[in-house]
């Protein structure tokens, strides 16, 4: 080990907790620098601290099953309307078709995304993003960072944007998107969205080949847990359920129910007769859209949706998110003001 490497605890990332961390017993990989995180959760914590230091509201995951961090209302809805916004959060995400019973080194049906949304996109967003990579231990003097064209489109959200996938040494570590349209509405101002695939990014930084082998907490902790300790069993359980057991009839019924409830909520007049206040119930309606979207993913994993039907289902979910977007811009968070009315 190289004690001199640790002698200068320079911490350019806002005086974060890890700055004072010392290895407990000196057993460390020779290649490690003091700056290298040691666990999955440390990478998440560093991202949280970094984006907090940049002034983002660090939010918590949305409490519903979603396919990606973009579905969190803090991104989808808040990217609409004129109001400024800056949020960062971890979002557990589910893609039932990607289940591999915990055996594939890179594929999971449940995984984490780290999501940042800033509106209007600041002029130095690329620099801010690169700062976040530095904060999690990527040293630009040794790594090759590239912004490779990748335009983003979400048919279920009726959204698209331009940007890149960001490569580090040939590996995609993030999506970087300037939202142009969401829910069929032109974005004004434009939001900048960053999405980090946390497992893949962490595996690379930590030098792990199989996701289940990745240290979840500090490997030196008294009770060290790997990603597999936490998630192997759930991956097996959900893979089995997603592919073979989930009851398609009730899923189909739930889909229809969510669709109907979403429409019903949005049909309610904005004036609440009880309080006499103007209350546009965007979020409850949007929850139903999120539900429908996840139910569609489950049905897809069960293999009961044909190619032709697929498009129709996607169109139905899009109609819901679009209706929610329409309602959001009629709410205060979406820029509605009594004067404008």
């Amino acid at each position: 080990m190289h004690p001199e490497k640790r002698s200068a605890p320079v911490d350019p990332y806002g005086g974060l907790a890890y700055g004072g961390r010392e290895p407990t017993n000196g057993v460390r990989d020779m290649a490690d620098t003091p700056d290298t995180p040691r666990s999955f959760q440390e990478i998440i914590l560093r991202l949280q601290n970094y984006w907090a230091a940049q002034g983002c509201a660090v939010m918590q995951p949305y409490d519903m099953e979603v396919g990606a961090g973009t579905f969190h209302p803090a991104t989808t809805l808040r990217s609409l309307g004129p109001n400024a916004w800056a949020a960062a959060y971890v979002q557990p995400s589910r893609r039932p078709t990607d289940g591999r019973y915990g055996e594939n080194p890179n594929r999971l049906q449940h995984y984490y995304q780290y999501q940042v949304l800033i509106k209007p996109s600041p002029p130095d967003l690329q620099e801010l993003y690169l700062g976040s990579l530095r904060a999690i231990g990527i040293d630009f003097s040794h790594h090759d960072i590239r912004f490779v064209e990748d335009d983003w489109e979400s048919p279920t959200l009726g959204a698209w944007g331009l940007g890149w996938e960001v490569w580090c040494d040939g590996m995609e570590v993030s999506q970087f998107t300037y939202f142009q349209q969401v829910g069929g509405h032109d974005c004004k101002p434009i939001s900048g969205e960053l999405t980090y695939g946390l497992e893949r990014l962490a595996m690379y930084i930590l030098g792990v080949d199989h996701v289940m082998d990745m240290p979840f907490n500090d490997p030196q902790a008294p009770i060290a847990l790997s990603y597999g300790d936490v998630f192997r069993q759930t991956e097996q359980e959900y893979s089995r359920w997603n592919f073979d057991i989930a009851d398609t009839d009730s899923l189909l019924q739930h889909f229809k129910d969510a669709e109907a409830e979403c429409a019903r909520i949005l049909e309610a007049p904005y004036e609440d007769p009880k309080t006499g206040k103007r209350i546009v119930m965007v979020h409850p309606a949007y929850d139903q859209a999120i539900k429908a979207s996840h139910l569609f993913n489950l049905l897809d994993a069960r293999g009961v949706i044909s190619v032709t039907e697929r498009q129709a289902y996607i169109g139905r979910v899009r109609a819901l998110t679009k209706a929610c977007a329409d309602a959001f811009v009629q709410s205060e968070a979406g820029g509605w003001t009594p004067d404008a009315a």
Partner: protein
Amino acid sequence: MPDLLIELFSEEIPARMQVKAADDLKRLVTDGLVEAGLTYASAGAFSTPRRLCLTVEGLLAASPATREERKGPRTDAPEKALEGFLRSTGLTKDQLEARDDKKGQVWFAVIAREGRPAAEIVAEVLDATIRNFPWPKSMRWGSGALRWVRPLHRILCILSDEAGAEVVPLEIDGIAAGDKTEGHRFMAAKPFSVTSFEDYSAKLKRAHVMLDASERADAIWSDATNQAFAQGLEVVEDRGLLAEVAGLVEWPVVLMGDIDETFLELPPEVLKTSMKEHQKFFSVKKPKTGRIEKFVTVANVETPDNGATILAGNQKVLFARLSDAKFFWENDLRVAKGGMQPWLDALENVTFHAKLGSQGERVQRIAALARELAPVVGADPDLAEQAARVGKADLSSEMVYEFPELQGLMGRYYSEAAGLPTEVAAACEEHYSPLGPSDDVPTAPVSVAVALADKIDTLTGFWAIDEKPTGSKDPYALRRAALGVIRLVLDNKLRVNLLEAFDHHGMASVMLKMAGAIEDIPDDASKALDVDLLAFFHDRLKVFLRDKGVRHDVIDACIAMPCNDDLTLLVKRAEALQEVLQTEDGENLIQGFKRANNILSQAEEADGVSYELDPNPKFAENDAERALFSALDDAAGAISPAIEAEDFAAAMAAMAKLRGPIDAFFEETKVNSDNDIIRRNRMCLLHKIRVICGGVADLTKLEG
């Protein structure tokens, strides 16, 4: 004379757009300058991932002053006329001059425009260029309204001469033009000022930016080939990839890495495609065996460890990618060795086109037609049918799902693995060919049978549902399919009656389906579609042959003959006709023929009768006429058997021999004799010329 330097510095521009964007910048700015009167000596444009650059040398310092005189209405013309003239000139009445003209006093306007300094014009032109730039896709960012391909950060715009450099005053959406740029994002990020293009490119190079895309591409290619050569290997050439990679880096650093042993047994195409599509790696092969053993990646940065960390990372990503590919390959091989049935079943559930049924149904149709065509192309009918049945199976495989561009090729590998006959395996790959004009045409009979059946099925199907190409729109690539059939037929000298192939084939069943299972297809409706499709083939054939130097009227003259759905016969005839037309006899014969035909047609119209009787030589009045009689008999005797034998050259030669007798006949003889019997006989003689010559080609279609 000042020089102009412009740099538009932005976030990363998609690689595929950079070169055209640089060209557009040059075109739009220089066109704008010239239009405003600013001519220049030379201009050059460059691009990197983060910048577009334009240098214009020897620009006029100011646009020249101009003076224009315009004549207006008479001084006593109505007020309205004067108002209009003032509006169009932008002058007031007291600025006009009254001059004497032939018709009296007339108003004259003298419009003098002063020259304008270059900076003013440049600012206007650049502003308009940036605001109206033809990006394939553009975006807004932040709170701004400006559109660019990605956020635009700096505008460098200077005019420089011996006295020094000056910033052109210009501001667009809050971005003020300056004389500053910056270097490589990671190796030299500090902004710096520049005074000229030479200064700019030299400083950029010091700041680790190679401005010229072709210089970057050359550097990548020479470094890659050198590194490969040093190890006795060879980089697989890929110009598209080279151009793309040159657009992803400002400072190319070539790194060669290993492919893990466990993947070297994958088909080379799989390795190559996976590395190219996902990682933008070049493949490096052993020249002797062709086996791909290493890869070349191009980094954008120099590192103290000479790229070791970067290469290790790339290798790791490649390992994961190739693990996927290997997983697909092994799963697929298992299905293939089991006979591919699950794949064939899966095709039943894949829609080919909503109105044309599933891929499975399409495969049935292709198999039936391939069997039908087999004897014509010299293929074994059983093999042709079998090849058609498995030809699309690989579309259900995991590998083709992941890499659609490997369709066909994987079919070949999997058919081989399934132990199918070699001809069948080859047809799985080759039946898609020829794809483009430069693509090879298959020659193996089984491949040819399936290739023809596949394309004819596509064409008849889309014809039946009325989805024909229109103008520039050809979403189903039907022109390409028709050209494919044409090349397959001609290159292999096949004798296919296309109308029969169309008719035999699925068109009827498709129409049945569309019409909701009516019992009978109206025969004439089906025929009309076939004929229309054949006309489409003839159009494509004309384009194809025109490129080979065959005159379009020659083709028309041959299309008008019977059996025109046999393209080999049609082309043979056309070639012979083209050849005979290049001889003096041939060319003059056509004139003689046309003269005969015109006189006859006029007479037929005027007399209201047709002169189809056999002419009688006993009414011949002179030697020339008698000679023509015997020449026609000789020609008829030679032409019929020649045509029967499809020896069009001989038929044309026999026809060309008529030139002398026909010319002599017209010289010596007045066709419209006063004697009715003689006249009628001569008309019948002309008719005989028409019939005999018309047996070779429809000469009336020839021009000139």
